[in-house]
């Protein structure tokens, strides 16, 4: 696993974006620690692939701290990534998530598997797992992380890693 790029916000920004992603790896792994700069209640962090405003499909399983549920989206402009609280949630706590994109540079549709947890010293604290399908055969060249209704708070960070398949010369597969 090799670090491609890591970003930490020195001030609140509308998004964190990785562009010109090199096409030299097999898979991508994204890790984030983010918080909303907004004053509203729970907001959703989103992932957008290649700036596409459609083609993102998702399935989500979540727990709220007092219940469970599932949602799905079809052909939208983004994947849901993290349920995140705003400035009304416990201060200095950031929400954590990771997303895996296999075969991101290939010529098939692109899948995503992700996990996320909202941090809050209270009953309401979302955990979720997500399945995503980007219905495009284009290679993933950019990933944008943003909130639906607010800026991303100062000190939020995101790191993108590349993973390369290979062989050790001993293990066989057929």
């Amino acid at each position, binding site marked *: *696993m*090799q*670090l491609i790029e890591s970003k930490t916000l020195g001030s609140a920004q509308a998004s964190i974006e990785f562009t010109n992603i090199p096409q030299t790896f*097999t*898979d991508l792994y994204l890790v984030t620690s983010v918080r909303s700069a907004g004053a509203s209640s729970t907001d959703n962090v989103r992932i957008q692939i290649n700036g596409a405003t459609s083609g993102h*499909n*998702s*399935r*989500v*399983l979540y727990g709220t701290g007092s219940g*469970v*549920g*599932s949602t*799905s*989206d*079809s*052909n939208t402009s983004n994947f849901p990534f993290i349920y995140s609280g705003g400035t009304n949630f416990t201060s200095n706590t950031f929400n954590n998530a990771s997303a*895996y994109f*296999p*075969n991101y540079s290939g010529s*098939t*549709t692109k*899948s*995503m*598997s992700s996990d996320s947890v909202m941090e809050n010293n209270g009953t309401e604290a979302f955990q979720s*797992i*997500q*399945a*995503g*399908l980007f219905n495009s055969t284009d290679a993933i060249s950019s990933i944008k992380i943003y909130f639906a209704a607010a800026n991303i708070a100062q000190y939020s960070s995101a790191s993108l890693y590349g*993973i*390369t*398949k*290979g*062989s*050790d010369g*001993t*293990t*066989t*597969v*057929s």
Partner: protein
Amino acid sequence: MPTPTYTPLANITLGSSASSVTFSNIPNTYRDLILITDIDITAQTNGYVMVRVNGDTGSNYTEVFMSSLGPTSQSNTRTFFYNDYGVDVTGRAIRIYQFMDYAVTDKHKTVLGRSSMGASANGAVTAAAFRWASTSAITSIAFTRNAGNFNSGSTFALYGVIA
């Protein structure tokens, strides 16, 4: 200089449809194994992917999982690892397996599984925990289906994680 955490062991991209994929001669020199698959299938009635280790076909595989299909949670004992609840849908789906302490011989083997089929029609996301009731080191991992094949273009990649 940081050391890569995933050491590639073997991989395959199917050039044509296949009924099975098997990793063999897995060395015992790592702490954990990570197996990442991006499998393209054509859905079958009550179809699913079966994963077995060391050729064991006995009722030695236990599971507990939760799925967005429902949503639901279940626990079962089977003759294979089952990571497919709601995921055996035509198209590509990610199935990830983490085999913890796979090479030790003093404990049963714990495996974490994730499957992600993002198509909004009938897709699902599932998380599972498995136990293989054997103290043997894992030396092979085999993928098959109870019906149908793995389509051309499916990928399987195995990595070792150093302690």
